[in-house]
């Protein structure tokens, strides 16, 4: 038997050790795969090659970004399209989450959730290729439009901004539905009835009761979807082709095609700064705190 008098300090010490051991894999992971490469990239982005194998610290990479209109135009375009994609995803996901939590009962509700999940059993590449088969000029949908007499000749449905947005919304849907479902599930139905009973219209109930209650879930979903969309490479590239002009493609080009790691690293940091800034602005506008959002979603 351990004497209780000195068991207490031992126990506190043991508890701390257990905590460190439990967190160790995650901390190692974070450090080795996220912090270290980012430090390396930060150093890369802040230097300039002046001669073969000769480098000096410089802000030239960032200067290039602002001097070359194509770069910052693609940057702004990526940001705007990502915001639009996030908003569209929210508009599509909200009614789905509403049906899952408030309209469907029991098995039907679970089934609907699975239906949302099913597309994610297939890899993103395969899904995007599926879209190609459907939308290309010789594909399923253009042929159908001709058969229905809506268009005279098959039209090319790929390589438009709308196509990219469709693909991005499709890819992101689940990541919006999940936090929305969890926040709508905790909304007591009698609150909705009470609002209705007190004379509120459907819209007033949505605005005054449902959205304020679901705000943390909405914010969490928007943050996740926005970040995924902004950093997405595959979907814009496959569905938008050369027209997509997605910022991640510029980064890819710098690293892999041009072998200009310094420029690519600078672009990477600009994208990181952009997503952080937009999320911060979004949180400020919606009056939410990041910690609350992450805890409640």
């Amino acid at each position: 038997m351990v004497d209780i008098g000195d068991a207490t300090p031992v126990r506190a010490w043991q508890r701390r050790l257990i905590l460190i051991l439990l967190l160790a894999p995650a901390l190692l992971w974070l450090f080795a795969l996220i912090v270290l490469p980012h430090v390396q990239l930060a150093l890369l982005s802040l230097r300039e090659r002046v001669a073969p194998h000769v480098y000096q610290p410089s802000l030239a990479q960032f200067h290039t970004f602002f001097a070359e209109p194509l770069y910052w135009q693609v940057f702004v375009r990526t940001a705007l399209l990502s915001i639009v994609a996030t908003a569209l995803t929210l508009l599509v996901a909200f009614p789905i989450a509403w049906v899952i939590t408030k309209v469907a009962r029991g098995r039907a509700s679970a089934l609907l959730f699975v239906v949302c999940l099913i597309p994610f059993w297939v890899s993103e590449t395969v899904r995007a290729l599926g879209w190609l088969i459907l939308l290309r000029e010789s594909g399923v949908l253009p042929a159908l439009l001709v058969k229905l007499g809506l268009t005279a000749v098959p039209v090319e449905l790929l390589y438009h901004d709308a196509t990219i947005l469709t693909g991005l919304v499709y890819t992101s849907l689940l990541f919006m539905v999940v936090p929305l479902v969890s926040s709508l599930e905790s909304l007591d139905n009698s609150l909705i009835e009470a609002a209705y009973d007190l004379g509120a219209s459907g819209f007033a109930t949505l605005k005054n009761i449902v959205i304020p209650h679901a705000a943390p879930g909405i914010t969490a979903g928007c943050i996740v979807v926005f970040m995924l969309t902004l950093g997405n490479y595959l979907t814009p590239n496959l569905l938008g082709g050369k027209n997509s002009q997605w910022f991640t493609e510029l980064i890819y080009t710098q690293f892999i095609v041009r072998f200009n790691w310094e420029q690519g690293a600078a672009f990477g940091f600009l994208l990181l700064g952009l997503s952080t800034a937009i999320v911060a602005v979004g949180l400020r506008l919606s009056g939410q705190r990041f910690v609350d959002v992450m805890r409640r979603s």
Partner: protein
Amino acid sequence: MSAAPSVSTPDLSVQDLRKEFAGHVAVHNLSFAVQRGSFFSILGPSGCGKTTLLRMIAGFIEPDSGEIVIGGRSMRAVAPNRRPVNMVFQQLALFPMMSVGENVAFGLARRGVGKLERTRRADAMLERVGLAGAGLKRVDQLSGGQRQRVAIARSLVLEPTLLLLDEPLGALDLKLREHMKIELKQLQASFGTTFVYITHDQSEALVLSDHVAVMNHGRFEQLGTPQQLYYEPATAFVAGFVGANNRIFGQLKSSDGDIAEIETSDGWTVRAKKSGPIAAGDHVEAFVRPEAAILERDASQLPANQAHYVGSVQSLLFDGANSAVLLHEDLTHFEFRVALPQTGRFADLKVGERIYFSFDPRRAICFPSHGGPHG
């Protein structure tokens, strides 16, 4: 009928209202009226259809057939947010994302009342329910009883024709519930709004109401004043549900006018007033209120014209003024509950002691019985 409601128009009139759920009849062709300014309760066990009835009046459930008329106006195809009716929900359903004042002003805002005016009216209403100055508080800063008052204030500020209350005291602890009963009755009296209250707690219904409808299996067993329900129950269900009662199953042996002599299967004979047509040999159930029976240690002190019984004390149920004793009748071991006199005369009663008791057959009542002894 004139379009403008006159003083004699009932605030709520329900005609032949019916609702079925998947073959199960929840509300069985009900018709009743509630007078203006009265406190009307619907009392019944859970699953009796009272919640369905209330939600049909509020408009959340569409009736299969029948008519609901509120303030002289038919509610057919009128949505809940357009009815002159407000509801206090079982869990109160206060909006946690709003302050107390915003909760009370919510309905006014929906009617397009300006911000200054609705704040003024919300504050005035909070003052009337004894929560002056609480407008800026958060809902979770209030106690259970205060929340109750906010829920009522939120509805009454809209000056509804009817206020519906769905077991609002159910979530409170006993002490607070007793307190809120009195407060609810006083609130209703001071506002004069017609209250329709549903509950499974017979004490709430008796204390609060002007009229009570006892509901069972989708029908009203009896509609009357609390006194009528208690002293003149119309059915065996009402006699068993409202107040404490000794229930005695047996067969009718003979009748002397409206007094029946009943014999239990164990051979115990009691006498009770007949309710409804009962012939000799019929199965009956008789009800005797605990306070209708009297105790005596000396048999000669009992009224001579009443049957005397002997029992041994099984347990003493001390509860202040509601104290009672459980007796086992000597011959049959029938468990019989007798209220102890409030004078404290039998305060020295011991478990196991034998004692005489009797009751006036005019204060006992018997009904035809369809089942045997059960429950």
